[in-house]
């Protein structure tokens, strides 16, 4: 039995980059920070608020997201949306993810034969 701490460490390591991909996909529809946090949580991408909020700004700085203040409602919120470049990157990352999945399946099938 592998220790729980080791397991969660490796899982965290494996998932590290997937939050960015998930954000880029979810934000094809504009969303604000807290709502995005909940959406990601619900879809199985648990991420801490203190990781996500700075991450959104970093992605915006890299031109992958655009942002807009929505002041229509009582509480003004900053909405983020995936830019054209962000979409491009999310396609590349998705393709890479798929090819990784393929490779791993091949590895496992090779092991069984």
């Amino acid at each position: 039995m592998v220790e729980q701490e080791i397991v969660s460490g490796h899982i965290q390591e494996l998932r590290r980059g997937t939050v960015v991909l998930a954000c880029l996909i979810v934000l094809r529809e504009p969303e604000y920070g807290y709502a995005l946090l909940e959406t990601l949580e619900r879809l199985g991408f648990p991420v801490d608020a203190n990781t996500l909020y700075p991450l959104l700004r970093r992605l915006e700085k890299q031109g992958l997201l655009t942002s807009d203040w929505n002041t229509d409602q009582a509480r003004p919120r900053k909405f983020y949306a995936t830019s054209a470049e962000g979409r491009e990157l999310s396609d590349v990352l998705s393709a890479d993810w798929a090819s990784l999945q393929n490779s791993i399946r091949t590895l496992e099938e090779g092991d069984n034969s």
Partner: protein
Amino acid sequence: MSTLTDRYVWAVIRSLPEKQRNDIERELRASIDDAMEARVAAGEPIRTAEHDTLLELGDPDRLSASYAERPSFLIGPAYYFDYIRLLKLLYVLVLPITAATVFLVQLLTGAGIGAIVGSVIGTAIEVAVHLGFWTTLVFAIITRSEKARKPVASWSLESLPERTSPRVGIPELVASVVFLLFFAGAIVWQQYNSVFTDASGSPIPVLQPDLWTLWIPYVFGLIALELVFAIVLYRTGWNWPLALVNVVLNVAFLVPAIWLVVNDRVLNHAFLSKLGWPDDLGMSVIAPILVLVFVGVAAGDVIDGMVKARRGAVARR
């Protein structure tokens, strides 16, 4: 009175660049309010909702550093090994030289043994602290500089250490350094503190005072080189090039030393006569003994180096 949220937001934004502050403050406040609202909607009292929301966001300094993309470490992984290498080098080179210098200066000013040991240790600690502090400071600044994101000095195959055997240990290094310092100290000491004094009360040195014009400084130079050699030896262990350097250093001492002894330019005649020895005793008895000792010590040292270099070469094969 400011709320906990006010204080938390202020703690986050106070160290951020001016132009980002407003935007981040607005967004962070909205996010905190959203999270609190969700907690209250789930049935939590408003007071604990604020508490828990802020606790979940964690250390404001960490969040602030994350917004500003500041490193949360003193010396980055890109520089860590350069930093350690430089520190080691500085300590190995500068500390012995400083200690040796302080030792000599104290000796020259005629301090007692307690004072000498005290000031050597005190200065060594002081210098060690300074070296550590300033090196760390410089590397911490480099880590925080925008542009530099690659190692200061690139690593290369040539910089790999030799695998050496037998190794030269700390005891050998200390023994060499202590002997060399003692030798240098003795030369200085005999000039100012002698068992005999002349009519005017000044001490009569064992060595001829003329030697100070050239040969004693020359020997001090050799001692400094030997100190460096001992440190290099400690770091790399014996090998053939070092054994050769050892021969050169020995010859550089031996040849002038024998020439001086044979020409009766070493021992002070005034000192010998104070001892009550006949004047010719110096040349007839002491000189041959000195030559014998010099040659013997040098030969032993050279052979020792060669044997160890050979053993090292065999071990590396």
